[in-house]
C-alpha cells in the first residue's frame, strides 16, 4: 500500500545490494547509457507539450545519444575480462517461499560482456549519427519533437534489451523497441499506408513476442531464475532448478525453439518477415536505425545471448537446425523479391531481410562470431544505404522508383551521396578484399561448408544456396546503383511532396513549385553523416585483421561472452574426449579453430584434443572451405555485379528502359510474381486474415445479439427496481412514517423468528 515507502526502501538498499550480489561488478555510471536517452525522450515530450518548434529536440537527442556512446566507449575501454554484472536497482523482487524457483528476482542491472559491449557500441554510435542525420532530414516537420521523443525512447529500450542482466529486462526492452518501432513506422499517421504498416509490424511482432514470453516463463519455471549469471551457471552445471539433469528435460530443447520464434518475429525471418518491407513507410532515419541496423538484429542478439542453451549437449538441436534452414531460405527468398522491386528503399528492405537470413544461418552453423561480425558490418553499410536512399527521397520529393531516376552522380551536390551509395553497395554485394561485408559474409559461408553434417544436416546444401544468394545480392544491389546513380542524367519528382512538406522548408525555398521542380541536394548534416558512415563501413574491415587469434576484433569480443561459452566446454571435453558431441562445443565455442585459413596447419596442431571434430569437418572442392571461400564468394559477387552492369548500365540511354527488359519475354510470369512478393501477403490474407475475419464477424453477431442483450437486460434490472421502489418515495410524511414502522416490523419479525422460534 505505502508505495512511496516501498520505493524509498528499495533505493536505500540499492547500494548494498549492488555491492553484495554482483560477481565482477562494474561501474554504476553505466546506468547513464539507457537513462540519458530516456531523459532526452522526456525532455522531447516537454518540448512537444510546450509546442517548441525549433531544433531543440534534435539537439537534446543527438547530444544525449552521443553522450551515451561516449559513456559506453569509456566503459568499454576500461572493461574487465569476462562478464560484468552491474546492478543499478532492485526492480522486481517477488518471493512466495524459500525453495528453488520460489523467488523471482529481476534487477534493473546490466550484464556486460563482449556481446553486449559490441551491440551497445554500434547502437549508440550509429544512433547518434542517425539522429544527427534526422535533425536535417526531419526539419520542418510538425512532429519534430514527437519523432525525437520516440527516437530517444527507442535507444533507451534497445539499451535495456541489450544490456539487461536478465530475461525480464530483455523482454521490457524487446517490447519497448517494438513500441517505438510501431510509433515511428506510423509516424506519418495521416497516411493510411503508414498506419497499416505500423499495425502490421506490431501484430506480426506479437506472434514472435508470444514465443519469447512463453520461452521466458518456461526458463523461469525450469531454472528458477531469469538472470543470465545464474542461468549460465546452471546450464554449465547441467542441472535444472528441481535438481534434474537438463538432458532429461523436454524444456532444454523447447526453450530455444520458443526463443527462436521471438527472434524470428523481431528479426523478420520467414514466415514472419512480412512486416519489415512495409515498415519502410516510416521516416528513412528510422528505417536506417531501427529497421536495418539495430532493432532487427535483436533476434540475433537473443540467440547469441542464450547460445549456451541452444548448443546444450545431449539434447537434439532442433532450434539451431531450424534457425540455419530458416535463415538460408529467408536469405534466398527475399533476395528474389528484392531483384524484382523498383522502389529502391524497398529493395534495401528486402536486402535487410535477406542479410538477416545470413546472420541466422551463421548462428545455425554455430559461428556466432560470423553472425555478430555480419551484424556489425551490416549495421554500417546498411545504414549508409538507407540514408542514401533517404537523401534521394528527400531531394526528389519522395521519388524512389529506379525507373525514374538516373545519373545522380553527375548532378551538382550529389557526389557524396553517390559515393557513399557505392561504398554501401560494394559492401552489400560483398566485393572482394576491399569491403567488410565480403569478410563477414565469407565467415558465414565458409562455416556452412565446415560444419559437419552430423551437427547441421545438409549444411553444404545451405552453403550453396547462400552462395547463389550472394550472387543475387550483388546483382540487385548494383542494379540500384547502375540505374540510379550512374548513366544518363534524368529525374522525375515524386508525386507526393513528402509529408514533412517542402513547403515548410525555410532554407530551401529556391525550388518553388511555380517554376518547375529542382532537386535539392543534401545539406551538411546529411553529407557529414553519410561520409562518416561510408568511411566506417570501410574501416570495419580493419577489425577483421586486429585480433587474429579470435578471427577479428568482433570474434575477440564474442570469445569473451555467453555466445562463446567455451571455457567449461573445453574442460569438459578434455576430461572426456570420447564424447561425440565435442564437435558442437568446439565450433560453438569459437570458430577460430577452423577459420584462420593460413593458420590451418598450426591450429590443427594446437587443438589436437578436438581431433574428432576435425575429422568430420566438411570440405569445399576438396580444400579447407575457409581458404577456398575467399575465391568462390568473390567470384559469385563479381559475376553478380557484372550481370547488373551488363543489364542495367551498359548502353542504357534512358532511366526507364534497360537491357534487362529484353529478358522479360523469356522469364514468363516470374518477374511479376517476384515483384508481387510471391503473393505471400495475399496468401496470409487467405490463410489467416480470412478465417479471422469470419470468426470475428461471427463473434460480432453473437456479441450484438447475445452479449449485448444480456448486458442491456442486466443493466435494465436496477432501473426497473428503482421504478418500483420510487412508488414509496412519495414525499408524503405519513407514508414515510408507515414505511419506517413497517420496516422495523419486518426486521423485528425476522429477529423474533431467529431468536425464539429458531
Amino acid at each position: 500500500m505505502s508505495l512511496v515507502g516501498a520505493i524509498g526502501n528499495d533505493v536505500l538498499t540499492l547500494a548494498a545490494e549492488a555491492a553484495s550480489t554482483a560477481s565482477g561488478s562494474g561501474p554504476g555510471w553505466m546506468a547513464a547509457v539507457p537513462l540519458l536517452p530516456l531523459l532526452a525522450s522526456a525532455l522531447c515530450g516537454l518540448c512537444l507539450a510546450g509546442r517548441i518548434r525549433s531544433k531543440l529536440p534534435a539537439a537534446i537527442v543527438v547530444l544525449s545519444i552521443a553522450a551515451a556512446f561516449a559513456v559506453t566507449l569509456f566503459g568499454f575501454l576500461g572493461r574487465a575480462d569476462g562478464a560484468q554484472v552491474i546492478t543499478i536497482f532492485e526492480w522486481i523482487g517477488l518471493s512466495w517461499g524459500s525453495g528453488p524457483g520460489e523467488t523471482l528476482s529481476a534487477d534493473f542491472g546490466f550484464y556486460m560482456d563482449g556481446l553486449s559491449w559490441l551491440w551497445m557500441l554500434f547502437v549508440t554510435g550509429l544512433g547518434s549519427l542517425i539522429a544527427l542525420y534526422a535533425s536535417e532530414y526531419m526539419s520542418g516537420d510538425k512532429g519534430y519533437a514527437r519523432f525525437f521523443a520516440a527516437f530517444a525512447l527507442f535507444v533507451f529500450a534497445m539499451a535495456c534489451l541489450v544490456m539487461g542482466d536478465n530475461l525480464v529486462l530483455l523482454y521490457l526492452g524487446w517490447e519497448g523497441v517494438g513500441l517505438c518501432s510501431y510509433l515511428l513506422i506510423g509516424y506519418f499517421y495521416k497516411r493510411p499506408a503508414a498506419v497499416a504498416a505500423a499495425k502490421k509490424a506490431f501484430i506480426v511482432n506479437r506472434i514472435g513476442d508470444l514465443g519469447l514470453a512463453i520461452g521466458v516463463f518456461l526458463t523461469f519455471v525450469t531454472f528458477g531464475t531469469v538472470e543470465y549469471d545464474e542461468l549460465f551457471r546452471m546450464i554449465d552445471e547441467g542441472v535444472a532448478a528441481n535438481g534434474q539433469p537438463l538432458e532429461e528435460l523436454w524444456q532444454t530443447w523447447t526453450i530455444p525453439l520458443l526463443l527462436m520464434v521471438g527472434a524470428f518475429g523481431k528479426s523478420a525471418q520467414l514466415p514472419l518477415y512480412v512486416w519489415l518491407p512495409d515498415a519502410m513507410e516510416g521516416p528513412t532515419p528510422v528505417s536506417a536505425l531501427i529497421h536495418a541496423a539495430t532493432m532487427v538484429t535483436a533476434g540475433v542478439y537473443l540467440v547469441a545471448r542464450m547460445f549456451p542453451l541452444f548448443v546444450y549437449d545431449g539434447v537434439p538441436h532442433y532450434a539451431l537446425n531450424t534457425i540455419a534452414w530458416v535463415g538460408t531460405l529467408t536469405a534466398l527468398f527475399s533476395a528474389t523479391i528484392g531483384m524484382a522491386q523498383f522502389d529502391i528503399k524497398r529493395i534495401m528492405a528486402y536486402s535487410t531481410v535477406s542479410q538477416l537470413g545470413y546472420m541466422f544461418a551463421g548462428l545455425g552453423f554455430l559461428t556466432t562470431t560470423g553472425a555478430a561480425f555480419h551484424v556489425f558490418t551490416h549495421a554500417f553499410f546498411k545504414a549508409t544505404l538507407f540514408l542514401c536512399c533517404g537523401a534521394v527521397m528527400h531531394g526528389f520529393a519522395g521519388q524512389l522508383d529506379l525507373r525514374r531516376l538516373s545519373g545522380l552522380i553527375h548532378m551538382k551536390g550529389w557526389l557524396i551521396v553517390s559515393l557513399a551509395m557505392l561504398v554501401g553497395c560494394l559492401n552489400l554485394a560483398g566485393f572482394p578484399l576491399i569491403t567488410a561485408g565480403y569478410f563477414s559474409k565469407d565467415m558465414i559461408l565458409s562455416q556452412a561448408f565446415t560444419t559437419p553434417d552430423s551437427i547441421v544436416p545438409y549444411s553444404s546444401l545451405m552453403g550453396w544456396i547462400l552462395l547463389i544468394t550472394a550472387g543475387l545480392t550483388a546483382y540487385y544491389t548494383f542494379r540500384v546503383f547502375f540505374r540510379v546513380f550512374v548513366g544518363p542524367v534524368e529525374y522525375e519528382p515524386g508525386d507526393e511532396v513528402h509529408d514533412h512538406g517542402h513547403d515548410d522548408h525555410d532554407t530551401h525555398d529556391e525550388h518553388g513549385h511555380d517554376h518547375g521542380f529542382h532537386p535539392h541536394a543534401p545539406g551538411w548534416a546529411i553529407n557529414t553523416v553519410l561520409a562518416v558512415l561510408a568511411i566506417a563501413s570501410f574501416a570495419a574491415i580493419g577489425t577483421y585483421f586486429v585480433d587474429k587469434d579470435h578471427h577479428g576484433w568482433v570474434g575477440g569480443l564474442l570469445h569473451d561472452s555467453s555466445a562463446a561459452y567455451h571455457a567449461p566446454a573445453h574442460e569438459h571435453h578434455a576430461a572426456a574426449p570420447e564424447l561425440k558431441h565435442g564437435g558442437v562445443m568446439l565450433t560453438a565455442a569459437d570458430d577460430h579453430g577452423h577459420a584462420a585459413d593460413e593458420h590451418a596447419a598450426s591450429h590443427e596442431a594446437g587443438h589436437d584434443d578436438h581431433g574428432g571434430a576435425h575429422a568430420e569437418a566438411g570440405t569445399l572442392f576438396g580444400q579447407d572451405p575457409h581458404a577456398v571461400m575467399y575465391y568462390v564468394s568473390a567470384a559469385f559477387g563479381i559475376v553478380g555485379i557484372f550481370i547488373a552492369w551488363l543489364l542495367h548500365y551498359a548502353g542504357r540511354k534512358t532511366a526507364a528502359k534497360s537491357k534487362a527488359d529484353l529478358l522479360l519475354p523469356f522469364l514468363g510470369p516470374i518477374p511479376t510474381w517476384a515483384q508481387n512478393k510471391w503473393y505471400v501477403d495475399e496468401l496470409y490474407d487467405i490463410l489467416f486474415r480470412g478465417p479471422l475475419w469470419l470468426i470475428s464477424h461471427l463473434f460480432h453477431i453473437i456479441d450484438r445479439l447475445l452479449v449485448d442483450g444480456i448486458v442491456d437486460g442486466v443493466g435494465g434490472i436496477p432501473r426497473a427496481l428503482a421504478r418500483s421502489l420510487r412508488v414509496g418515495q412519495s414525499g408524503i410524511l405519513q407514508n414515510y412514517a408507515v414505511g419506517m414502522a413497517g420496516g422495523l416490523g419486518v426486521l423485528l419479525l425476522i429477529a423474533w423468528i431467529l431468536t425464539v422460534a429458531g
Partner: protein
Amino acid sequence: MTDGFGLLLGAHPMIEKLQLSVPEIILFVAAVIVMVIGLSPRVQLRQLCGWVAGIALLAAAFAALLSPDSPNALLPDLIPFGKTLIAVIGVLLVMLVGGAADREYEAAVARGRVFDGIRSTRGEFYAFFLFSMMGLMLCTSADDLIWIFLALELTSLPTYVMVSISTSRSKSQEAGVKYFFLGAFGAAMFLYGFALLYGATGSTLLVDIAASFDSGINPMGMLGLIMALVGVSFKIAAVPMHFYTPDVYEGAATSVSAFLAFVPKAAGFFVLILLLATVGWTHGADENALPDAVRVTLWLMAAATMTVGNVMALLQTNVKRILAYSSIAHSGYMLVGLLAGPGGGAATNGLGAVLFYLMCYGFMNLGAFAVLACLERRPGMEVEDVDDLRGLCRRQPLLGGVMVLCSLSMLGLPPLLGLWGKLYLFTSAISAGEIAIVVIMGINSAIAAFYYLRLMAYPMLEDPTERSAELKVTPFAGRIIAGAISAASVVLLVIPADALLQRCNDAAQLGDVARRAIAEAERNEQPPAPVASDDRVADADRPR
C-alpha cells in the same frame, strides 16, 4: 493540566469525564460566543461568527488529539480518533456553510435596512452548528444508554432548525418539518429499544449490558437491541429509515445538506459501534459472534440500503438527490464493516474499515457538495440539475476538477481514497466469511458507476450548454477552499492510507473495561440474573 486535576481529585469519575470533554467544552463556549456576537448590529462582529466556530473546531481537534486516556470507556481509543476526525471535517463544514442561513437578510442590511436581531439567524445558525458537532463528539465517548440518547438528540435537534432556516424557500421549511417528525419517530424507536434493554439487563451502562449479554440474550433484550439498532439507523439513513434523506437534502441549502450527510451519519455509526460492542462480534469462527438475529438484521439492512441507494440514484436528475441516494448507499457499504466486526489485523478489522470509510466519505462527499454550493444561477439559487454541470471543467477548472475527483473517488476508482475505503471494507468482510454481502457490494459498486461516471463525464467530457454557461460562482471563497481541500485530501491521503488505517484499527479496539467485564461474567459461568450485575459494576469501579 488535565493530569494535575486527575491527581488532585483522585480521578473522580465526573472529573474524568470532564477531562475527556475538553473539546466539547470548547465548542460549547464557542457556541455561546457566536450566539451573542451573531446578534451584534456591527457587521464586522457578525462576520466573526464563522471564524470563531472554525477556530473553536481547530482547538477542539487539538484538544481531542491530546485528550487523556479513558481506560473506562468501552472503546477508549475511539474517543480521540473520532473527535479529531469530527473536528477536522467540521472545519471544512464551517467553511462550506458560510452564507447559508442569512445571505438575503445580510444583503438587505448591506443595502441599508436597519439591523434587527430578531430577524437575523446568523448567530443561532452557527450556535446550532456547534451544538450539533458537540453532540457528535459526545457520541464517541458515550458509555451509557442515557448518554447515547442525549448525545444523539443533541446532534439531531439543531439540524432540524438548520434545515428550516438554511434558505428562505418554503421547500426548506417543508424539509425541516419532515425531518423533525421522522427524526422524532426514529428517536422514539431507539428510545423504546433502550428502555427494553434496560428492562432486560437492569442497567443502562454499556459495560454492564455487555457483561449481561455475554451469557445469552433474552428475547426482551433482543427486541430492545433490534429496535435500538433500527432506530439509530435513522441517523445513518439506512433502509428502512432512509425515506427522509432525498427530500431533506433537496430541501436544505446545499451546504447544510453536506452537513447532514456527514454529522448525523457519523453520530449514528459511532453509536451503532458502541451498541454492537455490547453483543460481541462475528469474525470467522470466533465464538464471540454477533447473535444470529442481529447479524441477519444488519445483513438485510446493509444489502437493502446499498441497493436502494444505488438504484434510486440512477433515476435522478437532481444532483442533490443523487448525492442523497449515494449517501444512503455509502451507509450500506459501511454497515458491511459493522457486520464484519473487529478481528485480526488492520486489514481485517471491520470497525477500523468503517472508521476509515467514514473519513474517506467525509472528504469526498463534502467535496461534491461544495462544488454544488459554489455554483449558482442567481444569488442564493444553487445549482441542482445534472445538466448544470455540463462543461464545468472548461469553465471552472478548479470546481470541475473537484467534482471529477470526488465522484471518481466515491466510485472507488484507483488510486483515489475511496478505493482504499472500499477495499478495506471488502477485505474485512471477506475475512469474516461474509462472502455474499461482498458480492452484493461489488454489484452495487458497478451500478453506482453509472451515476458517478455521469457526475464525472458531464463536467469533464461535455461542452458547456447555454444554461450551464450562465452559472456564476458564489462570492464565498470558503466554499471553494473547502472543496479544494477535500479534493486534495482524496488524492493525497492515499499516501499515508496505511498509517491512517492503522490508526482506525487502533480506534476500533475494545477497551480493558469491556474485556474485564466480559471475562468476569464468563468466570461466574452463571446465567446472569440482571440484578446480579451490581457486583460487577462495583468491580468495574463505575458510578451508578
